[in-house]
């Protein structure tokens, strides 16, 4: 009962806390709300007209939504790179970052789910997918697996930080016996969500571009570069706008993770390119389309040729300690990496899978305004959720939010 009251008070306090803030904070939240509303409007049009409001067709049947979904699974999984050392190895440096990382994971997962729902033809019968009420094609369908692991991961990433924050809110220390098993589970789970999402594509013999054993490992490598890169940027922003102390060593350590992952990612990229272009087969056509275009159809060229140089440049710059230790260079490289991997693991992965089609037909895909609107709306939703989560946890960690026993 006491716990319950404390919990209620925490919810109330945090609600109060997130609705108050500086002017910048309010402008930021209003800005996000506006974009979310635009996104909702676009989605209502899509609901009304059907998916024909998007640029997808029978030839390219997945597009921007699934691209973003794929990328965000990676961002979500990357939170564990921080969880592991903090909770399990007692590496004190990360403790601050980890709550932020898990908040990011929650926001990214909610965005993933939103993208999947936006992509459905029949959102009103989505209950067919809920285990127990619907029919779940469980061991067979990778998508069924994905639904399970994503929701499980969401659950873990909500409960662990909630538990820790709740303890801190009451002015107590969190009990490691409770959260460490959870953390270890979430580490394994994060690798799981990534691999399962990769298997979603890898398991399709119909699409040679995806049916490639490197897809899973490359997913992991790129995620562990893009995710922590985003965390670095977020930490930098938080450092600027709040009193939350983030030691430089934390950021340096995260940067280290980014570099190693980015390097591995590049090696795999070269291996892939070698395979596709040294002895090109019929199955290399998608890659050929992606990098050089086919039959004069070149929609993806500007994208991929932005991504590759950005990726290489950022990785090279970060490899040098001197440059990496300079915050300006570091932040710049993180932006580059994040964008590059977004292109590569989103657009650059999903769309070429469909081009050329099963019989070699080359039909291109360009997202429509509606689609872009919905996408931006979902990103804004993610940012909104993340801001709220981060603000609350910072408030609690800084001791601004505390349970007062006497208070009702």
């Amino acid at each position, binding site marked *: 009962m006491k716990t319950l009251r404390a919990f209620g008070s925490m919810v109330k306090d945090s609600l109060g806390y997130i609705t108050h803030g500086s002017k910048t904070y309010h402008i930021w939240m209003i800005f996000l709300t506006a974009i979310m509303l635009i996104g909702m409007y676009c989605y209502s049009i899509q609901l009304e007209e059907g998916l024909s409001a998007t640029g997808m067709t029978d030839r390219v049947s997945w597009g921007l939504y699934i691209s973003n979904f794929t990328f965000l699974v990676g961002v979500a999984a990357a939170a564990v790179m921080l969880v592991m050392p903090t909770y399990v190895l007692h590496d004190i440096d990360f403790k601050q970052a980890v709550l932020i990382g898990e908040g990011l994971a929650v926001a990214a997962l909610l965005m993933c789910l939103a993208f999947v729902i936006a992509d459905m*033809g029949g959102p009103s019968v989505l209950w067919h*997918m809920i285990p127990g009420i619907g029919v779940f094609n469980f061991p067979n369908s990778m998508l069924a697996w994905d639904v399970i692991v994503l929701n499980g991961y969401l659950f873990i990433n909500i409960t662990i930080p909630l538990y820790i924050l709740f303890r801190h809110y009451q002015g107590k220390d969190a009990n490691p016996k409770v959260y460490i098993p959870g953390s270890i589970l979430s580490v394994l789970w994060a690798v799981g969500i990534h691999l399962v999402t990769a298997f979603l594509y890898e398991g399709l013999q119909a699409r040679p571009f995806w049916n490639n054993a490197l897809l899973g490992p490359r997913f992991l490598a790129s995620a562990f570069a893009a995710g922590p890169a985003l965390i670095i940027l977020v930490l930098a922003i938080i450092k600027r706008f709040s009193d939350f102390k983030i030691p430089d060593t934390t950021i340096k350590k995260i940067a280290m993770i980014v570099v190693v992952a980015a390097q591995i990612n590049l090696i795999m990229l070269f291996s892939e390119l070698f395979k596709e272009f040294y002895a090109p087969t019929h199955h290399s056509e998608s890659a050929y389309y992606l990098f050089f275009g086919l039959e004069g159809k070149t929609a993806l060229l500007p994208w991929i040729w932005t991504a590759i140089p950005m990726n290489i440049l950022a990785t090279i710059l970060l490899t040098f300690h001197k440059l990496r230790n300079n915050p300006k260079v570091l932040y710049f490289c993180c932006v580059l990496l994040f964008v590059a991997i977004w292109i590569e693991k989103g657009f650059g992965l999903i769309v070429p899978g469909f081009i050329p*089609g099963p019989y070699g037909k080359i039909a291109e895909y360009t997202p429509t305004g509606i689609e872009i609107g919905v996408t931006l709306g979902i990103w804004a939703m993610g940012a909104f959720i993340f801001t709220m989560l981060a603000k609350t946890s910072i408030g609690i960690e800084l001791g601004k939010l505390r349970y007062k026993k006497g208070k009702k």
Partner: protein
Amino acid sequence: MSEKKKWFTLDFGFNKENATTTTSGCGCGNTSGGCNSHKPAPIEPPVATSCGCGSTTGSCSSHNTPPPKNEYTITADEFDAAVEDTMVGETQKDGFQQVFDVKMDRRTAFRKLTASLLIGAGAVQTSCSAIAGEETKEKAQIDWEEQFKGNYKLMTQEERDATVKRLVRSYQLRKKENISMSATDASEDVLFGYAFNISKCQGYMNCVSACVEENNQDRNSQMQYIRIHEMKDGEGFKFNEADDNYYHEVPAEGHFYMGTQCFHCDDPPCVNVCPVEATWREKDGLVVIDYDWCIGCRYCMAACPYDGRRFNWSKPEVPQAEVNKNQHYLGNRMRKKGVMEKCTFCIQRSRSGKDPACVEACPTGARIFGNLLDPESTIRWVLENKKVFRLKEDLGTEPKFWYFMD
């Protein structure tokens, strides 16, 4: 089955099925687990005063206005009892109620209730408005039950009949016309197969238009299940250079033609990937979709190596005069937007002993269809006497669609 199986490597599962055949009535072709339609429907004590929204106590929180007349789904006896209590003055059952009394056991009721709380808010509003007229109410009731019905593959025979009846009635209410809809199950000892004579096809595309008309495909987006690929003589099968969307006089000089559609793979990757089992292989080899169960994720489309599937990107429209009224639940009944569909080998025709529309329409006789398990059938003759091949055999999907040349 014939012993000389020199023409296929396909395991049609015939022997296996002989061993395990129980009662018919399960159309899912799944002999182990997964399908519970072998069992008779569990008859649980009917729940008193169950309302259309699945609430057994009348406390369904999703009602906006508590409907006074919502007892459509109980059994006849209880209906009368309930009428005594709550609907004095309206003691006559109308035809609809007689036809559509649906038993609802607790499990279904619970399911529906939960589902309604989660998602159905929109549907509830329409289905529970008390002021609506009889017909509107009936429509709403049908919509309601349609929204929350189960997966066809797992339905009992009664549930199947009920949904077919509802769909027929719904069409009648909306369009003031009658359609006939069957739900014929797969027959024993039948496995459908198809063969395509490349030498004969001249690219007339009669098959394409016959298919569109037969299967009520969306006219707006010009959806077509069949694609005819025009290829250059002397270059072999170069699909990537073929034109599957030509508008000129055929046969064009120096070209040959080849049709593709869903090949009804015996080991269909599209079926494996569907997260909700909305698509499956029937016992007679047809790969079908329950349009009402499909959630429109399009995973199956990505998984099909043969470009066999089509998606309803917008609301499909067929001019009322052109609607083919001879329908099958798993075949050419009307679809809605956001669901997958594809060739079913004209299940509404093939299961009643006719050839698919494309076979009938082809003026050159390039298309051959029949029962692979019948040693006397034309398709068996073709497979045994011609040099047949299939596309992308390396993928291990075992299509039941062969090509051959004279």
